[in-house]
């Protein structure tokens, strides 16, 4: 599956603002998709798509804050940059508390917006990288036999082979063989690496 490039999703009910943002972002080479309402965006929302959301905080119908809530409910990781008007600071604070990366007040300097968008895209990339790594670790873990999983658990708890052999009531040699398999299947270069991978796999998300 060929992954689409990271996209800036712009949601603003004001056509002029929307279109001008599209051109502005296009001028700096960023792929843009625009939506006239929060609902329109939600209808086509694909959590797998990389990018960030530029969201007008005030809109008729579903407001920017409500859309953010919807996305949070769907465990979206897409970073949100809010565009606020004059006097919308209380709403901006609320948006930040709900996990927005940033906000910018209209009218704004283009570079300020682009910087914020780039930071958001960077964050998206990071998060998607982490997600991908975690998915790989989980995939590899899923290839382990039950005995190998037991060994993995005990190894990552820092237990010596001899102790593990006692716990599992097998020979020390058997533990060593399983351990080598786990290291190989997980692609771990060291015990420290393996421990990190297990922690990663247990993270939420």
């Amino acid at each position: 599956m060929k992954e689409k490039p990271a996209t800036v999703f712009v949601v603003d009910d004001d056509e002029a603002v929307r279109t001008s943002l599209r051109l502005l972002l296009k001028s700096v080479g960023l792929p843009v998709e625009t939506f006239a309402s929060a609902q329109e965006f939600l209808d086509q929302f694909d959590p797998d798509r990389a990018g960030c959301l530029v969201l007008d905080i005030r809109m008729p119908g579903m407001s920017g804050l409500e859309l953010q809530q919807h996305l949070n409910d769907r465990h979206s990781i897409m970073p949100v940059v809010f565009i606020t008007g004059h006097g919308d600071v209380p709403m901006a604070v609320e948006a930040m508390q709900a996990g927005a990366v940033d906000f910018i007040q209209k009218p704004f300097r283009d570079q300020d917006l682009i910087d914020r968008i780039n930071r958001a895209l960077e964050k998206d990339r990071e998060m998607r990288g982490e997600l991908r790594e975690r998915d790989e670790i989980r995939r590899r873990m899923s290839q382990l036999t039950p005995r190998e999983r037991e060994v993995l658990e005990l190894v990552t708890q820092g237990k010596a082979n001899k102790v593990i052999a006692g716990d599992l009531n097998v020979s020390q040699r058997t533990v060593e063989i399983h351990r080598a398999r786990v290291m190989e299947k997980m692609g771990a270069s060291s015990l420290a690496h393996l421990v990190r991978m297990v922690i990663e796999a247990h993270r939420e998300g």
Partner: protein
Amino acid sequence: MKPALERKVARGGSTVAELELRAVLDAAVDAVIIIDSDGSIETFSRAAERLFGYASAEVVGRNVSVLMPEPFRSQHDGYIAHHVRTGENRIIGKGREVIAQRRDGSLFPVALAVGRIDGLDPPRFVGFVHDITDRKRVVEALRRERDRAQAYLDLAEVMLLALDSSGTISLVNRKGCEILGWPEDELVGRNWFSTCLPEELRGDVEALYTRFFDGTVSPAHYAEHEIVTRSGERKLIAWRNVALRDERGLVSGTLSSGEDVTEQRRAIEAVRKSEQLLRDAQSIANLGNYETTIPGGHAFWSPQLYAILGADPAAGPMPVEEYIEHCVHADDRERFLQAWARILREGGPFDLEYRITRPDRSVRHVHSIARVSLDPEGRAQVVGTLHDITDRKLAEEEIRQTQDRLTQFSRLSTMGEMAAGLAHEINQPLTAIANYAQALQRLLAAPADVEQEDLDLALGQISAQALRAGEVIRRLRSFVKNREAKTEIIDPTRLIADMMVFAEPDARLADIRIRVEAGDGLPPVACDPVQIQQVLLNLIRNAIDATIEAGASSREIVLRTRLDEGGDIEVSVEDRGTGISSDVAENIGHPFFTTKASGTGLGIAISRSILRAHGGRLAHRPTPGGGATVFFTLPAMPGSDK
């Protein structure tokens, strides 16, 4: 006499006494008749012959009753017999007036004196008869004369009063008795001063009379003073007096005619008072009145009319032409002339407000109302009033200015409440412009990658959005700027669309949608669009606040226009907010009544006065299912049943 009668003389067998008696009898002017106790005539004197027309011989021996008419004739014997029998004396020595009868049967009045000749048995009687026809006639004439004089006195509609020198009433006529309330017989002989004068005047008037009688002063020809009637009522009498003088030329009394002027004075006083009242009222009201006949003739101006015009009352009323030229303000002259010409032509009412210029060049506003009637010769009788309404005009102007300032203030205040929405509305195009400009800069920095389409879009949009921002500002300016009210003919749908520029951003900020449901084919309205938009914004602002406060799930306000049953345009703002409680409804529209923390309490009051000035009204009703619907009406343009 008896001894003389007894003496006899030789000649003719008569005694000397008889001859003497005969001579006396014949010389007597009065008729002398002697009768015996049976009534038979014994002696009948010459004068008796002349008076009764009988010769002595004809009557001597006949009963004296022949000389009198019935019923005395038949009764006479009875009188004598009664006297002789009883000695009762009815006539003897007394004399009386009786009626006698001549030989020819004619009757005439006589004075009769009867004497009894004693010493004879039976006695005889002697009668002296004096013809009193002439005296009777004179007395009768005098009586008639007196009666006529009395009749004149009594006929006189004034009191006539004669006083003698002691102040005693010697004569008073019927009118006098009527005025004084006394019967004549009780009044005559009384002292005038103590009977008929009020106590406080008594001394002065009496002293004055005393001086007339002294001859010190002559009686005043004319005087007025009060009198007291028998019942104690006071009356004001106007007196005319003359002095009565005796044969020596001394004042012996006064004769006065007195007229009761109490009622007249009261009426004059009433007229004077009512004229004074009218003058005062005119002065207080600054209202003058006039009458005039056109063409030229009698004219009257009331004092206040001169005062209003600053004209000289001594100069008298001006002819209309002069009034128009000198008093009517030059700018109002044409209007005045038209109205004036019309009423002179057609009659009817004249009702005009115009200005006048006074001689000192000051200008006053006046309201003239006149009624004109045309007589058969085509002359106009004009009766009218002129009311100085300058103060009222100035007060009206002041109220209008205050109202304008309040309206303006309220509009600014409404706009202040909508400032956030408007700031947003201007921010949008500015943001877009900034974005386009910055995009262009970037695109032009790498010309190879530029698509012509993007350049066109950016440049086109920059100017379009600048215009958009400019338009918002222009509307805002025209909405808040201090302005004179002006009426335009406008399509209600457009009016609302224009107003939405302000209302929508505000609603959007509150996450409220305004849905406009415009009626189809509405006729245009004549109104001041800014003022009506002000009213609408106020209502929408209130609807937004009510919706927010209610936390209503339906965040929608419906703005509807329709033609109501009365043919007026109705504009309603329907929300699903908190609604209007009955105690709020009671106070709604009272200036400074507000339910909002930062409200001025002027919005609805001013909206109401704006609508009143437009001939419309403001009202509210509950929205079915909760909330309030506030609506107003505007009269549709007549004759535009599009």
